[in-house]
C-alpha cells in the first residue's frame, strides 16, 4: 500500500510519528524534513552534564599507566557502566522526544558509519561522548571535516588501537617494546572511506597506519589537558609514505591529514557512502540509479552532507512504499514516540537490549546490519509482539480512543483490515498492541 508523503516522512526519514507530526508534515513533507536539518532541536537537558570525553578518557589513562587489570575492571564495572547508562538513556530520550527527528536519524546513520562499540569493554563508557563530540556537530557539514573529527577523536584512537601505535623506526619504539598497529588504518580504508572493494591493498593499509602513528592522546601532568588528542612526533614513523599511488612527504600530523583529505574526496568513498545511504533510506537492495545519483551529489558538492540529505529527499525512490524493516532501535523508539512518551529510562534500555540492539554495542567496527534478513527471525518476530504489548499496557490509560489515536497519529499508515482489527480489539490495551505490532508498523 502507498502511504502519503507525510506519513512516509515521519516513518522513513524521521524516527516515527509523534502525535501531531503527520499533520505538521502534511502540507510540505519535504520542507518539514529539510527544516530538521536547518534548525535541529538542541539535545538540551538530555545531554547536559554528561561531561567531556577528555575527563572520561583520563580516567582510563590513569589505570593504564601503571597498567592495572583490577583497576581497569573496576572502572568498567563502576564509573564507565554508570556513564554508559546515562549516555544511552540520554541518546534514546532524544530520539523519542525530538521534534526534528530526521536530524536524529541522520546522527544515528553517521554514528553507525563510524562505529565505536562497547563490545570492546573499555569503550562502553566512552562511546556516548564520541557521538556527542565527533559525530553530532558535524553531520550537516562536510564529510572531510566529519572524517577528520572522527579519526582524531580520542575514543576512536583508543577503540581502533591507534593511541598506542608506534612507528617501527620511531624514537618511541626504540625506547619501548611498542610498534605498529594497523587496525585504524585498515578500517578507515575499508569502512570509513573507500569500502572493501575500493581498490586498496595491504601496502596501502600499512602506509596509512604508518602515517597515523603518533596520533594519540595527551597525558595529565605532561600536557595541558590529559585525554585529548595529541600528536606525538616521537611515535611518528618519519619519511614519505605512499597511499593509492600518491606519495605523501614527511609532514608530521599533516601527512595523515592530507591523506584523509584525499580519501574523503575519492570516488570510491562517494560510492561507498552512497551505497550505505541508499540501503538505509531506499531499500535493502537499492538500484544502481539511486546509488549513482547519491555518489554524484557527494562528489559534486565536495561531500556536503546537508546537500546529500536534501538530494535524498528529492529522489522518487525514497518516497516509495515503506519496505525497510525497522531495526529493534527503530521499533522501540517509534513505538514510544507513537504513544507520546516523554523520555527514556532504564526500562526502555532493557527493552532495546532484549530486542538485540543496545546503543553503541554493534558487533564490530562495521556497525549494525541494515537489512531485514539480519533483524527478523521467528523468535524475534514473537519478541516484537511481546514488546508492543508491553508498551501498550503502559500507554493504555493515556489513550482514550485507540482507533482515533491510530489514525490521527500514524496518518494513512494502516490498511482498512488493520483498522478494523484495532476497532474490534477486546480491550484498549489489545487495540494499541495491534497497532504497534501490525505489519505496517514494522516497516519504514
Amino acid at each position: 500500500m502507498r502511504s502519503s508523503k507525510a506519513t512516509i516522512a515521519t516513518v522513513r526519514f524521521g524516527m516515527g510519528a509523534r502525535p501531531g507530526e503527520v499533520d505538521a508534515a502534511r502540507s510540505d513533507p519535504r520542507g518539514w524534513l529539510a527544516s530538521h536539518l536547518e534548525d535541529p532541536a538542541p539535545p538540551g537537558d538530555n545531554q547536559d552534564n554528561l561531561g567531556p570525553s577528555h575527563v572520561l578518557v583520563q580516567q582510563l589513562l590513569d589505570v593504564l599507566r601503571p597498567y592495572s587489570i583490577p583497576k581497569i575492571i573496576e572502572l568498567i564495572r563502576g564509573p564507565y557502566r554508570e556513564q554508559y547508562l546515562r549516555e544511552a538513556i540520554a541518546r534514546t530520550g532524544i530520539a523519542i522526544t525530538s521534534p526534528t527527528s530526521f536530524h536524529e536519524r541522520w546522527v544515528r546513520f553517521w554514528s553507525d558509519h563510524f562505529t565505536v562499540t562497547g563490545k570492546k569493554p573499555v569503550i562502553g563508557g566512552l562511546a556516548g561522548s564520541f557521538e556527542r563530540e565527533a559525530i553530532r556537530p558535524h553531520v550537516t557539514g562536510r564529510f572531510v571535516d566529519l572524517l577528520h573529527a572522527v579519526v582524531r577523536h580520542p575514543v576512536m584512537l583508543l577503540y581502533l588501537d591507534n593511541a598506542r601505535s608506534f612507528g617501527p623506526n620511531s624514537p618511541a619504539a626504540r625506547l619501548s617494546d611498542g610498534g605498529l598497529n594497523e587496525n585504524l588504518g585498515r578500517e578507515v580504508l575499508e569502512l570509513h572511506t573507500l569500502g572493501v572493494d575500493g581498490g586498496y591493498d595491504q601496502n596501502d593499509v600499512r602506509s596509512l597506519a604508518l602515517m597515523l602513528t603518533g596520533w594519540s592522546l595527551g597525558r595529565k601532568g605532561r600536557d595541558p589537558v590529559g585525554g585529548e588528542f595529541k600528536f606525538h612526533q616521537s611515535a611518528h614513523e618519519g619519511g614519505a609514505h605512499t597511499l593509492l599511488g600518491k606519495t605523501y612527504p614527511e609532514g608530521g600530523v599533516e601527512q595523515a591529514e592530507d591523506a584523509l583529505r584525499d580519501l574523503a574526496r575519492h570516488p570510491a568513498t562517494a560510492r561507498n557512502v552512497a551505497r550505505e545511504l541508499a540501503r538505509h533510506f531506499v531499500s535493502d537492495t537499492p538500484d544502481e540509479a539511486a546509488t549513482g545519483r547519491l555518489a554524484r551529489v557527494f562528489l559534486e558538492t565536495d561531500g556536503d552532507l546537508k546537500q546529500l540529505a536534501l538530494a535524498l529527499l528529492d529522489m522518487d525512490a525514497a518516497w516509495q512504499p515503506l519496505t525497510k524493516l525497522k531495526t529493534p532501535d527503530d521499533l522501540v523508539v517509534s513505538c514510544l514516540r507513537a504513544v507520546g512518551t516523554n523520555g527514556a529510562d532504564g526500562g526502555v534500555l532493557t527493552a532495546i537490549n532484549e530486542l538485540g540492539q543496545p546503543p553503541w554495542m554493534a558487533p564490530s567496527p562495521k556497525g549494525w546490519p541494515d537489512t531485514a534478513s539480519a533483524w527478523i527471525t521467528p523468535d524475534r518476530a514473537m519478541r516484537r509482539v511481546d514488546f508492543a504489548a508491553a508498551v501498550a499496557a503502559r500507554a493504555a490509560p493515556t489513550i482514550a480512543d485507540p482507533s482515533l489515536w491510530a489514525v490521527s497519529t500514524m496518518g494513512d499508515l494502516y490498511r482498512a483490515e488493520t483498522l478494523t482489527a484495532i476497532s474490534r480489539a477486546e480491550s484498549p490495551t489489545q487495540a494499541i498492541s495491534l497497532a504497534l505490532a501490525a505489519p505496517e508498523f514494522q516497516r519504514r
Partner: protein
Amino acid sequence: MVAASGTAQAMGRADPRLLLIIQRGGTDGLTFLPPVGDPDLVSVRPDLESAGTLPLDGFFALPSTMPTAAELWQRGELAGFHAISTPYRDRSHFDAQNVLESGLSRPEGAANGWLNRALALRPDSASRGLSVGTGTPLVMRGPAAVGSWAPSQLPVADPTLVDRLMPLWGSDPLLATMLAQGRDLQAMTGGMTGKRGGIAAVMAGLMDNVGQLMARPGGPRIVAMDSGGWDMHANLRFYMNLLTGDLDQGIANLRSQLGSVWSDTVVLIVSEFGRTVDPNGTGGADHGIGGAAMVLGGAVRGGRVFADWPGLRAADRIDNRDLRPTQDLRHVFADILGNHLGYSRAEISETILPGYVFPATRTELFRS
C-alpha cells in the same frame, strides 16, 4: 574407514547433532592451539611460554584455560586443525566471514549460507535448524526455514494477541512466515527463557541453554551461534584467557546438558581467519590469514591435530607476516556434512559447497 562413497546417501548417524560456533573477529591460532613443538614459537611469541599450556600430541597444546577441552582430548573426543583457512586470501573481516558462511570460494555477497542449504535439502527436517542470538548469521540464512532463539526477559504477550495478528501479518510475506514459525517454535524452545551471563560467562550461559534445547527429543539438531570479541589487536593475552575460559566452561555445560546424546554430537569451532604470526606494537596481533579450528564431541574420533605445518619463520609465511594455510576449512565442513550428517558427495559439491572438490584422502574424523 574408507573415503565416503559417491553413492546418493553417504554414511551418517541416525540422529546426529551439530553445533557450529563462529568466533567473530579472527581467532589467534597461535594461542588457541599453540604449536609448542615449533622451536621458533618462543622467539615470535615469548609470552606464550610463560602463560602455560596443556600438552596434546607433543607438538600442539591447548591454552591452560581449557581443561575441559584437554579432558576431551584424553577421551579421544577432540580434534584440532591448524594452518587452516577458507579459500579467502585477504584480510577483511567482513569478506572473510562472507566466504566462511556462504561456503563459496570468494566473497560474492551471497545471500545464503551453507548450513541453510544443507537444511533445505532435507525439507522434512529443515525446521530442526536453529540459530542462537538476536540475528540470524549468514551461514543459517537461505531457503530453508530455520528457528531462532535468544534469551529474553520480556513478558510473553497474550497468545490471543498473536492469533489476531496472524491474519494481518499475512499481507507481509516475510513477516507472516516469521510469525507463523515463531509460534510453531514455541514447541521447540518454549519455556526456555535463559539468562545473559556477564562479560566472562557469555558462552558458558548460552551453551548451557543450547545443550538443554538440543537434548530435547523434538529439539533442534543443527545449531549455529556466534561468539564475539576475537579481534584482539591489543592485550591479546588478557582477552584470550577470558574468552577461552568462557568457551571451555561452555563446552563443559553443553556436554553436561546433552547427557547421553553427547555421543551423537559434533561441535565445530571456526573463525573467519587468524592473526599475524608476530605480535603488533600493542600487545595484540593484526589480521592474518591462516588460523586454527577445533572439532569436538562424543561422535568425534579425535585425539589428533590435523596440520601440514608450514613453520613460523618469515620465509614460511604469506607476505612475511601471516601463518600460511596448508588446508581448506571446507574439507572439515565436507567431512562433517558427509560422514556425520549423511549428505552425499553430490549434494555437498553441487549444492552445499558449490565448486568444492573432495581431496584424495579424508581425515576419518568420526566414530562409526
